[in-house]
């Protein structure tokens, strides 16, 4: 695999997202400017300019009509992807750590930092859309505010489950929690990791999700039962992980803390993207190319490429080789063969 380097950010990357069709990549960094790229060749389509602070998070709705960003400048901005103009801006009490459109695109969650005497919270804004998926109204008030629960450390990451039914959040102390997506009622809290949860990414159908943590573990959790399905043990602190469509893999990325990087060589930094088999929980490969920790990993919904944003300020875009698609364990091969023979018999 020969990566395409997406050079456009001046500071480290915070989040990388594909749109549903997988042809655009949305990236946000600490340099106040978000970028949109063509996934095919890595050309930059344009930038989203308007924030006055680091952009911690970016997301795009499923129609690729609007993008949303959350910034350290106390605002959540909604952008028109068509021309890069600002559609709306919500002000927040504290810096915004994570934003995400609900699966239908009618709500936006934002994770607010716990600074300035604020406990931190997940807040939900709602929008109204017309038949062409154009947003016709932005509700200025919060449709819901989930303050950090008693006995829990502040929330760092959050994501919507299928149908916007639940919001799942990862906490500073390694806990994960589940809330009703409409009322914000806390449904379940679970001790999962030993250190902070660095990322939560759902599967495509949003029925199960992958958590990564600085304690070097990643877990696959079912959203309905909140039970751990699989656990992946790695050799370095993790910043992000995604579930690959098409193949039964997960890609995990991370590395040493940014502040320790200068004291060690890259070789020891473990700045690789690690491929694990989703079901068998064994490592099957690594891609080693970032100079610093991998901050965020995203895979295209078609499962044909993945992009990683690094502390080093680069986004690397990898299109998978044939060998990636061909790779199968003997067990899978024989199961597939069996299936094929069975269907042929029928």
């Amino acid at each position, binding site marked *: 695999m020969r990566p395409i380097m997406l050079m456009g950010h001046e500071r480290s990357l915070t989040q990388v997202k594909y749109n549903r069709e997988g042809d655009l990549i949305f990236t946000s960094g600490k340099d106040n400017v978000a970028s949109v790229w063509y996934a095919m060749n890595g050309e930059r389509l344009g930038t989203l300019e308007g924030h006055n602070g680091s952009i911690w998070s970016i997301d795009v709705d499923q129609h690729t009509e609007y993008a949303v960003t959350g910034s350290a400048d106390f605002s959540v901005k909604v952008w028109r992807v068509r021309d890069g103009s600002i559609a709306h801006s919500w002000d927040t009490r504290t810096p915004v750590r994570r934003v995400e459109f609900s699966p239908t695109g009618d709500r936006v969650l934002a994770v607010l930092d716990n600074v300035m005497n604020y406990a931190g919270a997940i807040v939900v804004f709602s929008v109204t859309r017309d038949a062409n998926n154009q947003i016709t109204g932005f509700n200025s008030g919060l449709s819901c505010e989930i303050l950090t629960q008693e006995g829990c450390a502040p929330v760092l990451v959050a994501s919507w489950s299928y149908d916007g039914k639940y919001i799942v959040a990862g906490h500073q102390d390694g806990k994960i929690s589940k809330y009703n997506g409409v009322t914000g009622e806390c449904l379940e809290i679970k001790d999962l990791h030993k250190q902070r949860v660095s990322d939560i990414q759902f*599967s*495509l159908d949003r029925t199960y999700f992958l958590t990564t943590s600085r304690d070097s573990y990643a877990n696959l959790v079912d959203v309905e039962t909140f039970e751990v399905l699989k656990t992946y043990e790695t050799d370095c602190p993790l910043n992000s992980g995604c579930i690959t469509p098409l193949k039964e893999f997960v890609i995990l990325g991370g590395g040493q803390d940014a502040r320790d990087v200068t004291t060690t060589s890259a070789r020891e930094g473990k700045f690789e993207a690690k491929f694990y088999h989703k079901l*068998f929980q064994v490592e099957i490969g690594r891609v080693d190319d970032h100079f610093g920790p991998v901050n965020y990993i995203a895979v295209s919904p078609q499962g044909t490429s993945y992009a990683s944003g690094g502390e080093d300020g680069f986004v690397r875009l990898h299109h998978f080789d044939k060998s990636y698609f061909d790779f199968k364990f003997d067990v899978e*091969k024989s199961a597939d063969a*069996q299936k094929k*023979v069975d269907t042929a018999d029928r």
Partner: protein
Amino acid sequence: MAAVFDDIRLEDIPVDDVDMQDLEETYAVERSIEFDRYVVVDGAPVAPEAKVGALQKVLTKLFSQAGSVVDMDVPVEEGRTKGHLFIEFEDAGAARRAIKMFNGKKLDVKHRLWVNGLDDMERYGRPDFSTEYREPVVPEFEATEYPRSWLQDETGRDQFVLQKGEMTAVFWNRNNLQPENVVEPRRNWSNSILNFSPHGTYLFSFHDQGIASWGGPQFKRLRRFAHPDVKAISMSSTEKYLVTFSSEPLEVSDEPNEACPFGPESRGHQLCIWDVATGVCVKTFALPPQQQLQWPMVKWSFDDKFCARLGPGAIAVYETEKNFQLLGGKVMKIEDVQDFSFAPKGIKLASNRPNDPPSTVMVYWTPESNNQSCKAVLIELPNRRVLRTINLVQVTDVSFHWQNQAEFLCVQVDRHTKSRKTIFTNMEICSLTAREFPFEKVEIKDRCMRFAWEPNSDRFVIISRSENVNDNPAIAKNVVSFYAPEKKVDKKGVIIDKELSIFKKWKLVRAIDGKFSNEITWSPAGRFVCVAAIGKIGSRNENIDFYDMDYPNTEKIINTATDVNATLRDVAHINYASATDYEWDPSGRYLAFWSSAWKHKAENGYKVFNLAGAIVREELITDFNNFFWRPRPDSLLSNSEKKKVRKNLKEWSAHFEEQDAMEADSATRELILKRRNWLDEWSKYREACKQTLSESGLSICDCVELSTKDEDCELVEEIRETVVEESTEEVPFFEE
């Protein structure tokens, strides 16, 4: 002077108190008349007294066949005989024979003789003799284990037997891994070799008392065939009958004996046919007089309906289902017949109607005589219709080679030149399914030593040797020749000459000379053939050659002819000079060579090769005697099913590779099982997800497929112009 006792009357002398014991003892009459020498004959004609002499004469003559008649008493009453009479024989044996031979015999239309021993008459007359019918005791049914259990092995492995010294063991073949015991190795299982039946159901062992059959998952003893001192055995085509041959003529005592399987008529016979399943001797034969012994002495038709033996100037064909009676009641007289052979399969003759059952076909040959040429004759049984006769001249010897499906018959004719100094071979190849049975001749300069058809196919390999060259044994002069039917195709691979597919013409694909090779063995699955030089211990060169007749890369083939249906390639050359025997496994994937201590003592052991001649497994074992695979019955799959398997081979092979990995190592095995479990769990989990999602009107999604519809696509044309080179050149101005 004599004393006169007038007053003494004899009546008055008391005799009761006279002790005459001593006299009685001395003059006692021997009461024990040997009644077993007497027989009572009933049902004889009632004749006037005058004819008694004639009747006695007739009956004496008749009964003398059983033994010499000492006396015959024909009681007469009122001037007529009573219809019964008494015969005294010389000894008890003759009487018994007489009972056996003549009881129930029809003397003429009106009279049937009933012959009984005198002893029996007494027994029948006794009051305690019961005339009630008593149910014969039927032995309790004993269930045997399934004799073909080995075919149900989940991984479809094959079995093989190793014999070493006194020990015999049966193993599962596990490729290159240590073979797994099927049963505990046994000591002295057989006096000499062991033999599998042609389809592998039974294993036969040789003992002083006879043959024993073994089978089932544990190789338990099934039956005993009590034929003392058996030297050779052979099996019928469908494993129904066993033929045993002993060098000792059978000794059958006259006493009827429950334990003895033979009747008195078998005395002196050397050949027995047994029903394998029941262990009952169904027929015995004496050896035909003045004949060179040829094994097998009894040949079987493909369906075991007929068996036949070669006799002087005749072939005796027996119908097995009619109690081994001669077909048509008499032998087939064929003057000077030399050899015959049954087709190994039933043949759908072109003249048959489509629904006719396949025909039983036999071929035999007779040599040249004063006024007749040598003939090879194809006949159909049981109607003895001659299908085809070919006339041959200047013939030394003829042998028959059937293709295993009986589609083709090669009549190998070894002919001599007029001077009778050199011998050369003609192959007369008959296509049995074609109309009129066309024969195609293939001529060879030299004498053919070995001939082998490719199984289920129309190609063959021969080894021939020229006879009139240097007879130094160190010079290799055998020629290995590969033949295949001619095929005319154009460049696109379309067959031009369609007639060739009906009337085949065989063409030499390649001849390889300068070989010591003396054995040909085709893989049972066809395509691969191994040609070996066996018993050439001195040879330092490779003595075993593997060939592929359908090598896919046509650039590397060694054909000399191109318009044939074969692409030949030598795939491997192996040196295993001490090999004495060889056998393909029934699947045709492995070829075992072994060096038996029965033949020589050098390097005893075995080696198993795969198709490509790569060694899979080898062992050196001192005192190693024998290696043989367990045969398999024909596949039950139809052709279309086989085709389907072949189509899905890629899918299956993934499955098999996984199994191989599991076999190799128990840790891997556990892991694979665990992973399989995980995979199952996951698909179940996803199934459950589907349920929950459907409650919210959503569906499961593992990958976002992009629409390929035209209206969803936008064509983006990008034109790039690249300046390859830019140069400036000053062009001088020409005025002239």
